[in-house]
C-alpha cells in the first residue's frame, strides 16, 4: 500500500488526526529505513522538528498557512536553503552553507512545508542515472540494483519509497520527468520561467527549471502552486502570477485533443513494453472522452545533438565560478593559476569535466558558428515544430523514456549512450514548454511513464489529464517492497 499523499495528510492535519510533529517523525523514520537507497544526502532532523512544532503551534491558534502547512517535503541538493548545506553532489561545494534564501525554498517555507532533507543527484545535475554523485548512486526503490534515473534521482526515489509525499527537483533536459518515469511517480517540469531560478544552482540557464515530484498529479498541482509565480530576483521568471492549478482538476478530459507525434511512436530505439503501456494509457484517455490525432515533430531526432551543444556551452560558462576563491573547496597551490586548476580538477567529477570541456570547445574560436550557433538555430526549428503541433491539439502524449530503469553501471562507460536516454525529454526544455510524466504501468516489476507535453504556461491541462488518468488507474497506489532495500548499498 502506497504512503499517504500530501492532500490526504493535509486532511488528517486539518481534522486533528495527525500532527506535523508526527508526520516529520514518520518521514525521518522512513528515511532511515530507506537509507540503503541513497536518496538523501543530508537529513535536516532538528530543523525539520522545529519547523513541524511551529506548524502545529500555528494550527493550534487557528493560523494554519494552508494545505502544505506541516507537510514533509524534500529538496534536491542544488536548491539553496539559507543556513543549510548545498553541495550539488559535488566535492567542489564540500562544506558550503547557503548564505541567502533561494526563492523556491523560501516560498515552500512560507506555505508551511517542512523541509526534511536534501536529495541525491548527479553532480551539478549532469547525468541520467544519479551515478555521477560524490555520495554514490541513489537506487531505484523498485529494484535497488537499478538506477532511479537522473539527475533528480534522489527526489524521485524519496517519493517512490514513501519517505515524503512531495519532493522537488530540477529539469534541464529531463531530470525530473525521466526519474519520475523510472520510479513510478508523477514529475512535472513547468514552463521555462514559471518557477524562479533564484537559488537554483545553475547548470544551463536557458533550460533549467524547478518542479515537483509526487505520487499524484493533484499533489503536484498543490506543490507547483506554492512555488510558481514571478520573482523580481530572477529576470527570466515569467510575469504571470501563480495559477490556481487545483481548480483545473475536474476529472474530465472530454473534447481535449491529444497529439501523438509520429516520431515518438516509431518502433526503433524504444522498448516494446514501454510503447505498449503508453498506447494503453492513451486508449484509456480516449475512453474518458479525449480525442487523438497524429502530429509530427520533424526535428525531434536532432534534439539530443542540439541539447548537448547548448547545455554544455552554458554549463562551461556557469561552472567557471567554481575557482576556489570565494566559497567551496580550495586546493592549496603556490600561485593563483595553479590554485584554479587544482581546485577544479580535484573538485569536479568526470562527467562534469567532460561537459565543461565539450562546452568550452563548442564556444571556442573557430567552432562557435559550426556548433553553438548551429544548435541555437536548430533550437528554433524544434520550437517551431512544437508551436505547429500544439496549434492542432491541446497537448502531446508519448513515452517519457525509451526504456525501463537500467542497471547501475550499465551505461557509465558510454556517455553518448547515457545521453540518448533523454531522447523524448530534452526537446521540451529546448522549446520551453511544460512536460509531465505520469505512471502508466509496470513491465517486469519496473514502472513505465506516460509523458504529456503542453503549450507554454498550460501546466493546468497536463495536470488535468494526468489527474483524470490517475482517477481511472491504480498504478500510483502500488508501493515497492522495503524488504528488498536492506543491504542494497553494500
Amino acid at each position: 500500500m502506497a504512503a499517504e499523499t500530501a492532500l490526504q495528510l493535509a486532511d488528517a492535519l486539518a481534522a486533528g488526526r495527525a500532527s506535523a510533529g508526527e508526520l516529520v517523525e514518520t518521514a525521518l523514520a522512513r528515511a532511515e529505513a530507506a537509507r540503503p537507497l541513497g536518496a538523501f544526502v543530508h537529513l535536516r532532523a532538528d530543523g525539520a522538528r522545529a519547523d513541524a512544532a511551529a506548524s502545529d503551534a500555528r494550527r493550534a491558534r487557528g493560523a494554519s498557512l494552508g494545505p502544505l502547512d506541516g507537510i514533509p517535503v524534500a529538496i534536491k541538493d542544488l536548491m539553496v536553503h539559507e543556513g543549510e548545506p548545498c553541495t550539488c553532489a559535488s566535492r567542489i561545494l564540500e562544506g558550503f552553507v547557503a548564505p541567502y534564501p533561494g526563492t523556491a525554498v523560501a516560498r515552500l517555507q512560507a506555505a508551511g512545508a517542512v523541509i526534511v532533507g536534501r536529495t541525491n543527484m548527479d553532480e551539478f545535475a549532469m547525468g541520467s542515472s544519479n551515478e555521477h554523485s560524490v555520495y554514490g548512486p541513489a537506487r531505484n526503490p523498485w529494484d535497488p540494483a537499478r538506477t532511479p534515473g537522473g539527475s533528480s534521482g534522489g527526489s524521485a526515489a524519496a517519493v517512490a519509497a514513501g519517505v515524503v509525499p512531495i519532493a522537488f527537483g530540477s529539469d534541464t533536459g529531463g531530470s525530473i520527468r525521466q526519474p519520475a518515469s523510472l520510479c513510478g511517480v508523477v514529475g512535472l517540469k513547468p514552463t521555462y520561467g514559471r518557477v524562479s531560478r533564484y537559488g537554483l544552482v545553475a547548470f544551463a540557464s536557458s533550460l533549467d527549471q524547478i518542479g515537483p515530484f509526487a505520487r499524484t498529479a493533484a499533489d503536484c498541482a498543490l506543490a507547483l502552486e506554492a512555488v510558481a509565480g514571478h520573482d523580481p530576483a530572477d529576470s527570466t521568471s515569467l510575469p504571470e502570477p501563480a495559477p490556481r492549478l487545483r481548480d483545473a482538476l475536474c476529472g474530465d478530459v472530454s473534447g481535449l485533443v491529444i497529439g501523438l507525434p509520429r516520431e515518438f511512436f516509431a518502433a526503433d530505439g524504444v522498448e516494446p513494453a514501454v510503447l505498449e503501456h503508453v498506447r494503453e494509457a492513451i486508449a484509456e484517455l480516449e475512453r474518458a472522452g479525449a480525442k487523438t490525432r497524429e502530429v509530427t515533430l520533424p526535428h525531434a531526432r536532432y534534439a539530443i545533438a542540439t541539447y548537448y551543444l547548448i547545455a554544455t556551452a552554458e554549463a562551461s560558462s556557469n561552472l567557471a565560478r567554481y575557482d576556489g576563491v570565494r566559497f567551496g573547496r580550495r586546493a592549496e597551490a603556490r600561485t593563483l593559476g595553479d590554485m584554479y586548476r587544482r581546485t577544479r580538477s580535484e573538485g569536479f567529477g568526470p562527467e562534469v569535466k567532460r561537459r565543461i570541456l565539450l562546452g568550452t570547445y563548442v564556444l571556442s574560436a573557430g567552432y562557435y558558428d559550426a556548433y553553438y550557433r548551429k544548435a541555437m538555430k536548430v533550437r528554433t526549428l524544434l520550437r517551431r515544430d512544437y508551436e505547429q503541433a500544439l496549434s492542432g491539439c491541446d497537448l502531446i502524449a508519448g513515452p517519457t523514456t525509451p526504456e525501463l530503469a537500467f542497471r547501475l553501471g550499465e551505461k557509465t562507460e558510454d556517455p553518448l549512450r547515457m545521453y540518448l536516454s533523454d531522447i523524448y525529454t530534452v526537446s521540451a526544455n529546448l522549446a520551453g514548454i511544460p512536460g509531465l510524466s505520469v505512471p502508466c504501468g509496470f513491465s517486469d516489476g519496473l514502472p513505465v511513464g506516460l509523458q504529456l507535453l503542453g503549450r507554454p504556461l498550460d501546466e493546468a491541462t497536463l495536470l488535468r489529464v494526468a489527474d483524470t488518468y490517475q482517477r481511472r488507474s491504480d498504478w500510483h497506489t502500488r508501493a515497492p517492497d522495503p524488504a528488498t532495500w536492506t543491504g542494497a548499498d553494500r
Partner: protein
Amino acid sequence: MARIDRAEVERIAELARLELAPDEAERMAAELAAILGYVEQLDELDTDGIEPTFHALPLATPFRDDRAEPPLAPERALANAPDREGFAFVVPKVLDEDES
C-alpha cells in the same frame, strides 16, 4: 569537423582551467570525438536564414525602480571563504604564475 585529439583536449582543458592526467586526456579525446561525431548530424539541416533561439520564450528585459536595496551582508558573503582577511578573500599570489 570532429577531429579532436589529446593535444586539442589539453588545449581546451587549459582554457577551462582543468588539468587532466595523460590517460584522462586520452579517454576524454575519444569520448568527445564520439559525441562530436554524433552532433554532426545537425549539418544535414539547412539553417540559412533561421534566427537562433537564445531563450525559448519571448521575454523583454525587465526593469525595476532604481532604488537601493540591502546587499548580502559582507560577513555572510565571506562566511564560505576558504581563506580571508578582514573583509577580503585571500588568494595565492598572481604574479609568478608564468614561472610555475
